Each structure stands twice: as structure tokens, then as C-alpha cells.
């Protein structure tokens, strides 16, 4: 998951809590292994290395692809799981190397969900194209883990937090809400800009606090527009959203970032609680 993951279990029963934690860990690992783009033995690798005739997909991955397809529609093409190849020309290491227009043009030919044939259960795409479920995977894992724990122990409430994307399934033992601090992006890890009380629901944050490029005093955020191949201009430093499920919260936060300077307007339009730190 590439970030610290924790599971807060509201229970007095240590054995139960340990058991649930084991479950959570197993499920998180399972999802990570299954959808990580760094492995060469999972469905994502197969998809990205199979020939142009494509491959048949299992139910769980198919559900994620269906969801990604819907997000592509809802975001007018700004959320695109095939945009990962752009990282070949953009390396957000805090340095000052930015690609040329030519390089971007060439890479863009291999980007575009509309160029992929997805008809459940079959997925086919051109050579050189890749899908990356990194933008959905972590939030999906949070929701799945919470669901699994709820199925096994309906009376036990938990807060599942994978690197700031979290969901709470109910209040704490004392009946009170969980208090969640919102990270201050300019003093990340040191300061919070506020706190949120969460009894039941999800909270996700997206931002560019840790990855960017700086050249000629212009800050290039790592949020790339898959249509142009360039970073989204004036993207907010961070966006946090509250919703029913983590995946919904995560997507809204991501969509907001992709709106660049219109992030706030977009968020207000959605009528959900949000926090934004503009650039």
C-alpha cells in the first residue's frame, strides 16, 4: 500500500481483536498482491503483458474495471486508469527534469481508456498500453477490510486507516465518535489543520504534498491530465472528502484535484463535507 496502515478495533476482547486484525492483514495483503503493478505474478501483470487479443478477467477485477469505467465517464475522461504510462516521462522526484512536448505526444498515444476494449469478462488493449489500479486499490482495500470485519463480527466497530484513506463502521466502545486529524500539507506529519469527528463513514485525502517537480519556480503537481499529458494546473495542495464509503470519498477527492483551480467549485457542487488546501 506504500503507506502506514492501521486498524483501530473497538473491543475489550483481546483475542477477538487479534483475530480480526489477522483477518484485516490477510485481506489487505491479498488485495495488494492481486492488484499491485510491481508484481509479475498477478492479474495486473497478465493484463499488461498479454497480447492484443486480450484476456478474460475474474469477477473481482472485472468489478473494479467496471467501476473505473464509470469513473472515467463521470470525470469526463480525467480519471483514467490507463494514464500510468505517463510516469515514463514524468518522474516526480522533487528535481527539475520535465519532458518535452514531443516526448509527451509519443507517450499519449498509449494513453486512453477509450482505446481499450472492455466487454466483461474480456479485456483487450494495444501493445504498450497499461492499466494501473493504484488510484482505486487502497480505498477499495479499506472498504473490503471493513466489510470483512463486519461480516465476521457484526457487533465490533472498527476504523480502518490505510495511509489516510479511512472508514469507520460505527462508534467507539464508549459510544463516542472517532476523532480524525486532517494533515497540514505544508507541515506534513507535524501539524493538523483541523479535526473531524467520525462515527460511521469514510474519509479520504488526495494531494500533492509529497510528490512534485520544481522548475523555474513553477511547481508541477504529480496529478497529470490524461488528455494533455501535462500536470493539472493550480491543483490544490490537498483535498479531503467525507462520504459513505472510502472508495467514494477517494474518488471525489481525486476528481476534485483533477479539476485544478476549479476544485473548490466542484466540491461545493457535490454537496458533501470537504476540506481543501488551495495552492
Amino acid at each position: 500500500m506504500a503507506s502506514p496502515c492501521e486498524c483501530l478495533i473497538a473491543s475489550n476482547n483481546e483475542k477477538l481483536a487479534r483475530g480480526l486484525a489477522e483477518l484485516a492483514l490477510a485481506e489487505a495483503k491479498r488485495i495488494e498482491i492481486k492488484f499491485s503493478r510491481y508484481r509479475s505474478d498477478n492479474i495486473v501483470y497478465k493484463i499488461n503483458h498479454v497480447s492484443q487479443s486480450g484476456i478474460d478477467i475474474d469477477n473481482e477485477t472485472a468489478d473494479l474495471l467496471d467501476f473505473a469505467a464509470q469513473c472515467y465517464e463521470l470525470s469526463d475522461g480525467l480519471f483514467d486508469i490507463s494514464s500510468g504510462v505517463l510516469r515514463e516521462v514524468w518522474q516526480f522526484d522533487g528535481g527539475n527534469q520535465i519532458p518535452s512536448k514531443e516526448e509527451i505526444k509519443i507517450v499519449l498515444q498509449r494513453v486512453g481508456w477509450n482505446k481499450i476494449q472492455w466487454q466483461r469478462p474480456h479485456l483487450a488493449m494495444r501493445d504498450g498500453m497499461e492499466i494501473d489500479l493504484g488510484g482505486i486499490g487502497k480505498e477499495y482495500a479499506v472498504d473490503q477490510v471493513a466489510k470483512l470485519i463486519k461480516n465476521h463480527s457484526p457487533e465490533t466497530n472498527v476504523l480502518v486507516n490505510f495511509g489516510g484513506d479511512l472508514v469507520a463502521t460505527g462508534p467507539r466502545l464508549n459510544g463516542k465518535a472517532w476523532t480524525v486529524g486532517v494533515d497540514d500539507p505544508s507541515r506534513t506529519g507535524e501539524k493538523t489543520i483541523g479535526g473531524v469527528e467520525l462515527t460511521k463513514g469514510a474519509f479520504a485525502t488526495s494531494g500533492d504534498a509529497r510528490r512534485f517537480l520544481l522548475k523555474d519556480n513553477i511547481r508541477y503537481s504529480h496529478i497529470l491530465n490524461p488528455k494533455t499529458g501535462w500536470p493539472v494546473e493550480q491543483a490544490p495542495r490537498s483535498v479531503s472528502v467525507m462520504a459513505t464509503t472510502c472508495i467514494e470519498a477517494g474518488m471525489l477527492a481525486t476528481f476534485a484535484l483533477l479539476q485544478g483551480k476549479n476544485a473548490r467549485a466542484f466540491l461545493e457542487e457535490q454537496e458533501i463535507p470537504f476540506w481543501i488546501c488551495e495552492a
Partner: protein
Amino acid sequence: MTIIKKKRNIQKKLALASCTLLSHGATDVLAAEAEDWAIDGSLLHYAEEDRITVDKFIGSLVTNVSESDKVKVDLVFDTMSGSTPSGALDGAGSFTTITTPSGAGGFSASSGSTAIAKFDDTRLGVSMDWEHTKKRLHRINYGSSISVEKDYTSFGLNTKYAQDTSSRIVTYSAGVAVAFDDVRRSTGGTPEPFAKYNEGKTLDGGNRVTVDTIFGVTRILNRRTLAQLNFSSGLADGYLTDPYKLVSRTQLIDPMDPTAGFDEINTYYEKRPSSRQRNSIYTAMAHTTRHNNVLHMSYRYYWDDWEIQSNTIDFRLKFRYDDGLFIEPHVRLYDQTAASFYTFAIAQEEYGISGFPEYASADYRLDETDATTIGVNIGKTFPGHGKLRVRFEQIQWEYANSLFDVNKAIVLQVSYKKLFE
């Protein structure tokens, strides 16, 4: 610069998409029970060597009517034909009383003899069961069944109560069943017991009532093992005789030499007691081995007041393979002692020309018997398309003191099961 093409609220659509994703997300194995309907159907062919053949269709439907109610409906349709030993010894005894070890039987009956009874019948049976979860950990079952054929009708009711401990490691259950049977010959009525064959009065149809009870404990021993222990007891009262079965009176050809053979003097209808009290202790286990195969074993000890005692051992090992395929060999060993009133024939040397024991039956099914079954069951699950099973069994019964030493049968059963949302 990126501008949203038009201002719009996508939150609701996104929320819906998210819910869809999560509701279909990979769930763990225990959710497999969430299917609402299951239909299972079987065609079965049972054939004895030179005797009865039975073809059966069995169908079963199970559905979760609500969160706390499950209903099961079963249907059976049988057709039976062929012949079966009546218990009588036909005509002149040109055979010895010493059975041949090859088990070929020392006698071949022609179609006109009384030793073989022809058999032709169809049966229809329906049963229903309703399982109600009263409150968490407590379940009650109510069931009923009806079976109808030319010469037999049965109606039964049963109920069972089961309770789990809070950790769901142990389940205690108790059940009781009552059955009302009506038995008659296909030509009508029942024969007068011990009357001569084809003579004597025809009495009314026979009725009997059977009550059975069972108490059981099922326990999870460890993560991969489940075990059960049951005690059953039952009482049957009424007409327990078989209206077709016969018993012969014989006379030794040479009173000094039993091996010289005997003659059949007369043939009579059999007579059994009008009550039978039965008991059994049954234990079973299901275990997943380290190789991920499933072992099923069971043992039953049975005894009743007809002085029959019996042991049954059953053993299955299911080898499971990755693509949903399994191969399951099966062995069953069975033995029983003879009923106290079982007899090969009524000997004139003992009872004279016209005397009788209190009860007598030459029905081979009450004889001292050893039975062995070997079989294999092969099946495959087709994800989304159901589960197919094909089973082949070979059964052999050996009798200690009957006209025919051996009965062999084969069973072929093909079944298909499908689950529906």
C-alpha cells in the same frame, strides 16, 4: 487549463457506482450460503443380477424464504420391475442344503415357480421440510412426507429441535417422527398368516404405526474436523408381515441323510410379530486432511427385539482437484445376524405335517447377511453453471441360510445441482 464542461453533481452516481463495486466485491467462503435457491436432480439406475431393476428420478428444491426460514421440497419417482425371491422353495428338492462356496446358488427357478415372485410397481413420493430459526442458536424443523404405490401408502410427520452453544462449537438436537403405513397386495387385502399359498382368507389391508426418536450431538473438534453421535430408538406396531412372502414346509428325502436333499411339502404365507422395537448408535466424522482431501467415516451399531444385531462401517475419501473436480472412492461394510424367527424352511421333522412356530419368515432380508459395497463418485463444479456428479457402486450381499446365497447389484447415479440468486 482544465474546465469542467458543465457544472454537475456526480456525487449520487459515484455513490451508486461505489456501492455496486462493494456489494459484488470478493466475499469470503461463508457467504456461499447466501444463494436463495438450490435445485438438485438425480437419475438413478439400480440393477440386481437377474432380479430387480429400479429406475428412480429424485428432485430436490431448497429455498431461503426469509432470513430465518428455509424450505425444502423433495420429489421421488420410482419404477421397479423384475423378480425377487419369495422365500418359498419350489417343487422337488434336487439340491442339497449345503450351499456352494462359489455363491452361484444351487437352484435355478423357472418362471412358473413360487420361489420367484414377479415384481412391477411405480412409486411417487413427496416430502417437505421447513426449518425455522426461532432465535439465534435455536432451530426447529417441521417435516411431512407422503409415498404412494400400488400396494403401499405411507404418510409421515416429523419434527426436530436443534440448539447450538454460544460459540457454535456444539449442537444438540432431538427429533421425533411418526409414520402411518397402509400395506396390501396389489390384488387387494393381505393373506391370512400361515394359510396355504393361494388358499385361505384374504384379510383387510394391513396398517401400521411407527414412532422414531433421535437424540444427537454434533461437535467441531478442530478447524478441520466435525463429529457426530446419535442415539435412535423406535417402535413399529401393526401389520409388519410382508404380504407377498412365503415360507415352505420341507421333508427330508432320507431322514438318515440330510445331504440327500428334501422335498417341499407345502407353501404358506409368512407370519411376523406385530411389533418391533429398534435402536441404534451412530457416529460419524468429516475431516479435511493435510492434503486438502475430505474424509467421511461413519459407524452404526443397530439392534432390535427381533434379535437382529448389525454393524455398518462407511468410508469415503474425496480427492479434490483445482478445477472443481473431485474423485471419491467409497467402501461400505455391513453385517447383520438373522431375526429370531427367520428360517430357511419349516421342517416337518420339527413341526410335523401341520404344526407351526410362533412366527416364521424366509425373507432373505432377515437372514444372517454380510454386505460389501465398493464405489466411486466423480464430480465437477462448473462455476456459475452448477455441479455434476456421476456415481457408480457395486454391492454384494451374502446370505448364510437362504435359497440364493448371493445377491449382486450395481448402482449408477447421475446428479446435477444448480444454485440461483
